[in-house]
């Protein structure tokens, strides 16, 4: 890409000087040849060495140390120079053509008519130097004229000629290659290292970064010429050069993906969309240059556009205070400084390049290192963010747990309080009910105390027993948690106990009761029990020596309650019954309240059978 900086088309015409020769000796290690040579541009591309040498062709002087003709110029360039050995010894010199990309270079020795060929498409098999070289030999005091025929296919044609003292040349070449190898080694290590980081983090930014580095490496291998000498077979070179637009595009393509993922371009949807679309069509645009040589001059235009867009993105994101974009921007700055100093060097404003020709390589290494640091920074930050989120999440969970615990505690306390209140209220209510019953009974008994009539007194006792039967139910409800159902056994036991205390007699009562009753049924059953037992007490047994027995059973079979009371007394005549009120009460309770059936057998003692259907 920095190649573009060298694009200069220089046309100039100066006074033609014939027979100008360059004196050389062994004391000066390097001569710059081009400015003392002459040039002829053969637009026909058909002239041969003989024709050039014999025809009086007007060569023009150059006065420049470097000539650039751009991509695949459509002409042959002829350079003519004359060397004069001023010493009395044989001189061995090396002519360096200081550009590895020029495809065809041919040297003609006018004295010996020898022809030497070099250049990218015809690399000398023995050459291990980066640039094409030709070995020149001058006899003592000999003056010799040489012609160079230069043409370039596809690649750019840049002409720069140096004449070296042999040892100096190889020393410099060795130094140059070592430094380049150092550069490639460093880049390669960065790429491999970050490739492994990618395997571990699965962060795509790393992958694109690695692709970018490999792209830079492969491009630079071509650009500085190392690749042609050591890595590629000569037969491949032409093929590879055809793909040069790809080689230039690849690192930028990878860089685009790297930038996109690294600065999280998604947060700028419009810019992201533009980049995505461009990246989709980019490979097709680049392919155009492979299919035809016609547009070679412009083959890097789309890559340059992409590059400019990436620079714009970095600036834009930086202005939006995107931390990653700062790194990218600094990276671009480094490359820009490198490029600028090269450009300034080549225009002669600055002289850095002469003393330190590895500005580009240094810039690349700095940029690659910076990006590696930036990636590490990004991963670090992401991890920190994740940790923060985790911590926040944990803290949130903790506080939520605490809140819930507190809420449960409060609710439990409220419920407990409500329950306690309810319990106290219920106790108070039952207490009052029982007190009221006591008052009712007391009133009855006070009234009864005023009566001397035994029959009336009996009536009062009967009423008392009925009220008592109900108050026993209250007593039981008061003592248990469930206030809708009652254990019939306990209830009957207390009613019977009360009756036995009320009528002091020796009648045995046997009962077998194993059901639960709902409260409504229980009140009726208690009253029925009271009436029937009292009837037996009063009328079944004439004297207490009768060994009277009363049997009571209450059980349930398939939703039907069976309630049987029988005694072994004398029975009674149902038609002339004098204890009809109690029976009326029982009948009424069975048919109207329990919705059941009653059957009384008075033949052998009294046997009362009641059954009803449980609706609850």
């Amino acid at each position, binding site marked *: 890409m920095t190649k573009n900086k060298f694009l200069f088309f220089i046309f100039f015409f100066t006074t033609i000087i014939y027979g100008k020769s360059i004196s050389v000796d062994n004391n000066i290690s390097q001569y710059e040849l081009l400015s003392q040579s002459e040039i002829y541009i053969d637009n026909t591309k058909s002239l041969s060495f003989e024709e050039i040498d014999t025809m009086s062709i007007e060569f023009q002087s150059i006065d420049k140390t470097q000539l650039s003709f751009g991509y695949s110029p459509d002409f042959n360039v002829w350079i003519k120079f004359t060397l004069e050995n001023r010493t009395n010894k044989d001189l061995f010199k090396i002519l360096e053509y200081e550009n590895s990309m020029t495809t065809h270079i041919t040297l003609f020795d006018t004295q010996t008519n020898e022809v030497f060929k070099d250049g990218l498409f015809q690399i000398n098999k023995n050459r291990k130097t980066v640039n094409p070289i030709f070995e020149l030999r001058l006899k003592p005091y000999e003056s010799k004229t040489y012609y160079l025929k230069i043409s370039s296919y596809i690649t750019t044609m840049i002409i720069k000629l140096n004449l070296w003292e042999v040892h100096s040349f190889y020393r410099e070449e060795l130094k140059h290659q070592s430094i380049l190898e150092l550069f490639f080694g460093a880049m390669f290590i960065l790429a491999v290292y970050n490739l492994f980081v990618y395997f571990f983090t699965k962060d795509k930014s790393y992958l694109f970064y690695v692709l970018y580095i490999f792209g830079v490496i492969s491009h630079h291998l071509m650009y500085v010429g190392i690749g042609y000498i050591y890595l590629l077979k000569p037969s491949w070179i032409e093929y590879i050069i055809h793909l040069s637009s790809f080689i230039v595009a690849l690192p930028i393509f990878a860089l685009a993906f790297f930038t996109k993922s690294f600065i999280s371009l998604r947060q700028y949807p419009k810019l992201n969309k533009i980049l995505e679309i461009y990246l989709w069509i980019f490979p097709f645009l680049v392919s155009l240059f492979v299919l035809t040589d016609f547009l070679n001059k412009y083959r890097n235009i789309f890559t340059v556009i992409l590059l400019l867009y990436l620079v714009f993105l970095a600036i834009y994101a930086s202005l939006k205070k995107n931390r990653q974009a700062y790194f990218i921007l600094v990276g671009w700055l480094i490359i820009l400084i490198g490029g600028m100093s090269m450009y300034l060097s080549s225009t002669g404003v600055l002289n850095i390049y002469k003393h330190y020709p590895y500005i580009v390589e240094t810039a690349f290494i700095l940029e690659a290192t910076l990006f590696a640091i930036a990636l590490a920074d990004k991963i670090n930050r992401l991890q920190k963010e994740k940790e923060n989120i985790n911590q926040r999440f944990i803290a949130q969970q903790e506080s939520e747990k605490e809140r819930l615990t507190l809420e449960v505690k409060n609710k439990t306390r409220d419920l407990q309080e409500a329950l306690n209140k309810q319990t106290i209220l219920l106790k108070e209510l039952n207490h009052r009910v*029982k007190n009221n019953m006591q*008052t009712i009974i*007391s009133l009855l*008994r006070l009234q009864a105390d005023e009566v001397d009539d035994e029959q009336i007194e009996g009536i009062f006792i009967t009423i008392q027993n009925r009220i008592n039967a109900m108050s026993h139910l209250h*007593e039981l409800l*008061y*003592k248990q948690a469930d206030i809708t159902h009652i254990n019939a056994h306990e209830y009957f036991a207390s009613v019977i106990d009360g009756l036995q*205390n009320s009528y002091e007699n020796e009648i045995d009562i046997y009962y077998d009761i194993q059901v639960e009753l709902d409260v409504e049924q229980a009140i009726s059953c208690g009253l029925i029990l009271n009436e029937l037992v009292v009837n037996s007490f009063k009328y079944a047994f004439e004297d207490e020596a009768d060994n009277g027995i009363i049997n009571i059973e209450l059980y349930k079979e398939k939703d039907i309650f069976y309630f049987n009371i029988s005694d072994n007394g004398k029975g009674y005549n149902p038609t002339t019954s004098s204890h009809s009120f109690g029976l009326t009460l029982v009948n009424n309770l069975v048919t109207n309240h329990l919705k059941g059936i009653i059957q009384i057998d008075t033949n052998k003692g009294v046997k009362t059978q009641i059954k009803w259907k449980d609706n609850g």
Partner: protein
Amino acid sequence: MAKAKILIVEDNPIVALEIKSALKKLDFDITDITNSFKDTLNSIIKEEPDIIMMDIDLGDEKDGTQIAQEIHKSKNIPILYLSSFSDDETMEKAFDTNPVGYLIKPFKREELKTTIMLALFKINKLEYENINQDHTYIGFGYYFDLKNRKLYYKSQQIRLGLKERQLLSALILAQGNTLSAEELEYKIWIDNAPSESSLRTLVYRLKVKLGCKIIEVSYSNGYKLTYKT
């Protein structure tokens, strides 16, 4: 023998009147009817009753059990509670004051009569017959005739229900050892397993009848007689 003098502490005037009427019929002297701590103390000093019928909930600053405690600080007058409370907490509080009886409202006059008679026996206000040597002494002045399953306070018989008699004889035969609820249920109901609370209800009825802590209850272990003298 002089008529026993009875003080009635009762805040419900109708109930108080009825108790008075019932006791008069049994030929006791009613010294006074009071419904507060202060009046009760004054009346005791003035009338020196032999026995006090004590309501518990008086709507006064002090309840019946607290008044009983205060009285016992200076005078040893037997207390007979008559209350509609039948919860364990109140009854335990009442039993702590060593009453001669505990009646639950609504009460029956027969109960009132036997309890008062028992109380008078306990304070030796009534003569009693020779104690039958065959009867088993079970503490607090109570004797039980295991053969006929009859309970006596000294020589006075106390009526018990069938199941109450079974419970008491089972506990006496255990001779102070603890019987589990299951064992007692089996002895009393045999095949017909009763509901959970049946045994507790039975024990409660017996305790109320005896008016003392003759049965020790431990809900985790079971029941036993205390045999206190």
